[in-house]
């Protein structure tokens, strides 16, 4: 096409306004819609946090972290005399921590090993199969995982609801997340770094332990923390595996309380409603801290 022609065309589009509404107006409309939905989303988040803070804060005190929940009668008495509900959720807090620690002990080493295996053998057929299975596991509804673990562990191993069963269920939920994040963060390491270590005569297992893992440490940590924060609020699988426990328990073959289980329990008891909010607040605060921590670690990622 002729050069002058293009120039002329350009001028024309500038002079003649766009057909229906002007371009400026359309831009402004689009911006308005974007802002509207952003504000909507943000206000939802603040509404959730605000509700929990508003309804939950007055139950947060020392007893909340150090005592077990009251029975429904005690709660009713306190409410009718205008006091806050006595007791707390220490059995749930300690139980949740117990479950998370045991689940992590199972899922972290296993997840790291499988992740490293996938990274090392990424093109092998067997690795592809494992990767598919991992994806499937990630898609299994948590209630189904609960059912399976009920059959495996509750019925056959501990002969009853137990910390072990709950931890296995949570570990199964953590596993795919950790496997994937391990493989992904190892993949981000340039091959040249591995070669540098090998060229120094380093035995291969030491290349993994002393170069690959430290170099991808932030990535691995981020994945682990996200997996933990993901399972902290899980309720359904725990109902089928650990049941809950009104007292503190350290026996791994016995049931244990957990914060999300307590929330469900409080929900079913009209006298305990106030404790729902403070427990939710606690749970959300905890998850939020883990998330921020993993963001902070992630932001310090090198290479």
């Amino acid at each position, binding site marked *: 096409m002729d050069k002058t022609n293009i120039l002329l065309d350009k001028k024309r589009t500038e002079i003649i306004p766009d057909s229906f509404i002007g371009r400026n107006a359309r831009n402004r409309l689009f911006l308005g819609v974007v802002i509207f939905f952003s504000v909507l989303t943000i206000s939802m988040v603040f509404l959730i946090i605000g509700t929990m803070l508003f309804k939950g804060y007055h139950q947060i005190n020392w007893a909340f972290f150090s005592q077990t929940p009251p029975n429904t009668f005690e709660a009713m008495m306190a409410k009718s005399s205008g006091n806050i509900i006595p007791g707390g959720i220490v059995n749930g807090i300690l139980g949740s921590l117990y479950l998370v620690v045991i689940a992590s002990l199972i899922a972290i080493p296993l997840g790291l090993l499988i992740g490293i295996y996938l990274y090392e053998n990424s093109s092998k057929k067997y690795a592809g199969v494992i990767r598919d299975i991992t994806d499937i596991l990630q898609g299994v509804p948590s209630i189904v995982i609960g059912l399976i673990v009920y059959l495996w562990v509750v019925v056959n191993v501990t002969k009853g609801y137990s910390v072990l069963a709950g931890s296995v269920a949570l570990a199964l939920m953590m596993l795919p997340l950790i496997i994937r994040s391990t493989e992904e963060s190892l993949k981000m390491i340039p091959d040249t*770094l591995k*070669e*540098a*270590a090998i060229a*120094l005569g380093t035995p291969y297992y030491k290349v993994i332990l*002393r170069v690959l893992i430290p170099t991808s440490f932030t990535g691995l940590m981020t994945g682990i923390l996200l997996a933990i924060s993901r399972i902290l609020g899980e309720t359904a699988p725990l109902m089928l595996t650990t049941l809950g426990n009104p007292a503190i328990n350290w026996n791994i073959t016995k049931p244990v309380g957990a914060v999300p289980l307590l929330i469900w329990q409080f929900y079913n008891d009209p006298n305990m409603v106030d404790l729902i909010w403070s427990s939710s607040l606690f749970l959300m605060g905890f998850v939020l801290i883990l998330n921020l921590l993993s963001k902070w670690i992630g932001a310090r990622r*090198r*290479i």
Partner: protein
Amino acid sequence: MNTDPSILSIENLSIAYDKDKLAVKNVSATIKKNAITAIMGPSGCGKTTLLRAINRMHELYPNISTEGKIKLYDENIYDMSTIKLRRKVGMVFQRPNPFPTLSIYENVIAGYKLNGINLKRSERDEIVETSLKNVALWEEVKNSLHKKGNFLSGGQQQRLCIARTLAFKPDVILLDEPTSALDPIATAKIEDLLVDLKQNYTIVLVTHNMTQAARISDNSMYMYLGELIEYDETTQIFTNPKHTSTQNYITGRFG
């Protein structure tokens, strides 16, 4: 060709990544001690493969097959343990690759650390200082030895990587296009450094840069399609090449 003692002798070496396609074809050559040997040739001619075969880094590729021998002094390197071999034959890569989680100091002695060799503090300090002085980096980093190396420039990082290789006191240093990621000033520094280092080390250098080969190497190999076409003193190769293929390459007609 001159008659200095040789350190490496490559005997009928053939390497294939996949069964039928040879990347290095029946190469034989002896490499002189305390000299810089350059390997030149157009892209894909097998320079990297040949270089990596000298410390068996090529074996990292899963389906690779190797025939022939490389002797270091009188020992066939394919009979040695790779760990022992790689301590005697160090390697510097195209892109500087210091370990990002280690400090400058730790990077220099990384070879010892990674191999679990414990050194006394005084020994370590000495190795770090001499290695960094050898690569002319000591003055620039002596006050930040315990900082991570990521604030260093590309050229400084590459010198750090050379120091890391030197720290192990190898006999041979292999370098694969070590300056291709660097600017001319940093390149000149590395070239000067290599010329200094040949007093104590044998250097094998893959380079795409013919003027670099001409400036610093004593002997040059010219490879084409996996074959070693010509191998001679560098001045000979550049002033009086015997093969037309070599001549075409050095006059810039292809490559």
